[in-house]
């Protein structure tokens, strides 16, 4: 058992007060961070089906999890892409009232994750590379979704992605919200559009919990470090893709072109690798995720 470190509460309180003063409560808000959160959630931002429409000559949507339902919050199917086939799977939000309801605001239920697994296994069977597009506030928090095993569905999607023998690329195109987003992002390469965000928790919920005040969402967003620049620095994403001037919503087809070019480059590289090596490197990549101290040294 480790021994207790010599901690004295009084000393601590003094230290805290001092650091609070030093940091001015961390309230030097960088407006650019919240701007990005808003761009990532922009109602006109291109969604998965918009990218699919612009990027691929042919697309066959495949539906259903073969167990319980078809979740419109995750779409997937086979796409023709530069003389090869791709399996494209992504979160899908709606743009008007009806389609938002239909797509459940992009919040998948277990059926969505199970459909994703099914399609990935189909892709793996036929040697088809997998592209995932990530854009969700998070997995849907509902009673029935829990009863049908929301947690287990996400976990099995993660293992499924780890196991694939084909090249895999994910792109965070909007909101990368928590486990519901990560479930589709355990890939050889993780790309991120410039104005997307990716976070363990929404800034609003984080503020409510840690600051006991959901009004502190801007501060939480900044502290969590959820922008593409933050995640690039933490080496969580492999490449940040610049967006058309003003943001992807200004020009869907230009955004799709950027994504398409980046994807082609990544796939070219991944396809030349020995599949066993590629798979092993995927495990190594996620094994390295995290920062901790060992024998006093901080390890990345």
């Amino acid at each position, binding site marked *: *058992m*480790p021994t*207790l*470190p010599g*901690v004295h*509460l009084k000393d*601590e309180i003094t*230290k*805290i007060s001092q*650091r609070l003063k030093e*940091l001015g409560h961390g309230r030097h808000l960088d407006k650019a961070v919240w701007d990005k959160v808003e761009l990532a959630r922009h109602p006109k931002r291109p969604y998965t089906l918009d990218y699919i429409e612009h990027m691929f000559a042919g697309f066959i949507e495949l539906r259903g999890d073969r167990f319980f339902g078809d979740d419109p919050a995750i779409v997937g199917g086979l796409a023709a892409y530069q003389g090869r086939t791709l399996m494209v799977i992504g979160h899908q939000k709606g743009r008007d009232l009806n389609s938002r309801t239909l797509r459940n605001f992009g919040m998948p239920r277990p059926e969505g994750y199970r459909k994703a697994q099914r399609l990935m296994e189909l892709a*793996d069977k036929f040697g088809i590379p997998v592209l995932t597009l990530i854009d969700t506030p998070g*997995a849907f*928090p509902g*009673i029935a*979704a*829990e*009863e*049908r*095993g*929301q*947690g*287990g569905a*996400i*976990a*099995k999607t*993660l*293992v499924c992605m*780890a*196991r694939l023998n084909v090249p895999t690329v994910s792109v965070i195109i909007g909101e990368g919200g*928590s*486990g519901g987003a*990560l*479930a589709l992002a355990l890939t050889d390469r993780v790309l991120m559009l410039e104005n997307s965000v990716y*976070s*363990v*928790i929404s800034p609003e*919920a984080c503020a409510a*919990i*840690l*600051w*006991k005040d959901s009004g502190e969402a801007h501060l*939480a967003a900044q*502290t*969590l*470090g*959820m922008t593409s620049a*933050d995640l690039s620095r*933490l080496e969580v994403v492999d490449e940040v893709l610049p967006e058309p001037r003003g943001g992807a919503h200004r020009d869907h087809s230009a955004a799709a072109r950027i994504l398409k070019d980046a994807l082609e480059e990544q796939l070219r590289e991944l396809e030349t690798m020995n599949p066993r090596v590629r798979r092993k490197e*995927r*495990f190594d990549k*996620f*094994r390295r*995720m*995290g*920062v*901790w*101290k*060992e*024998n006093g040294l901080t390890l990345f």
Partner: protein
Amino acid sequence: MAQKVSVDISRRGGNNSNGAESCPGCKELLSPADLSGNAMTCPHCGHHFRMNARQRIELLADSGSWSEIAGNLRSADPLEFFDLRPYPDRIEEAEYDTGLSEAMLVGRARMNKMDVILVVMDFGFMGGSMGSVVGERFWRATEEAMETRFPLVVVCASGGARMQEGILSLLQMAKTSCAVELLAEVPVPFVSVLTNPTTGGVVASFATLADVIIAEPGALLCFSGPRVIEQTIKEKLPEDFGLAESNMKHGQIDIIVPRTELKDRLVQILGLLEGGVACALQPLWEEEKSPSRRGGAITQALNRIKAFANSSRRSPKR
């Protein structure tokens, strides 16, 4: 996510030895001795009180058999995270309160003489939240299990991700899932025990990926916490929402085991899984079956597993 779950706060390390308390199950007044003498369950109604990591190790590991692995890992502060207080201060407080170095301990142990890799989580350490150290310790546990071929037992208790490590805490879900997959490709048996509460990222990664999932009676097990769901659907949740018994009904867990039987059941299950491993590793069809093959399942199984340890990795699943 951490702290979202509505559960009674774990009492501080030092002061739980004075005074009786009323059982939430049957309202009987229980002394600390009543509880600790009964694996922290109510002798009257069986209500399961929360157990900390030390108590859990005492419950499960044969006396003196625990030897910690990766105990020298400590949280860093990669985001220099500061909400109402700095993250390092919260860590220090948790260390002080629990006497633990993190929310997860990993070690070798023996259970009824069976060698295992034992992992226990402690909800008292920042809500059992999963940060980089928890993820890395879990990875080391699976490495040790693969090295030794000892089965892996993981006792879960968690409120979710360690928000103070931002995206890195989220990625521990991916990391631990990769670890489980590598373990499965050997394969080494992996049993999880879900205790009250196990929620958030832990549920959406290793906790639900075990070969056999055991839950303690009455434990709250869910991905999204009850409060988040109530806020989303604007409805009060049913009383049994997310409880082990409800999870059982909905097909999400294998078996509910009362804590007083937990150790024996775990050993029985591991022995049964090991029996299979032993047969799978031994190429029966190539050699005369010796009579000894059929007796003393568990011990012999273990010996055979060790003998075959480095010889017969299975090919990865497709």
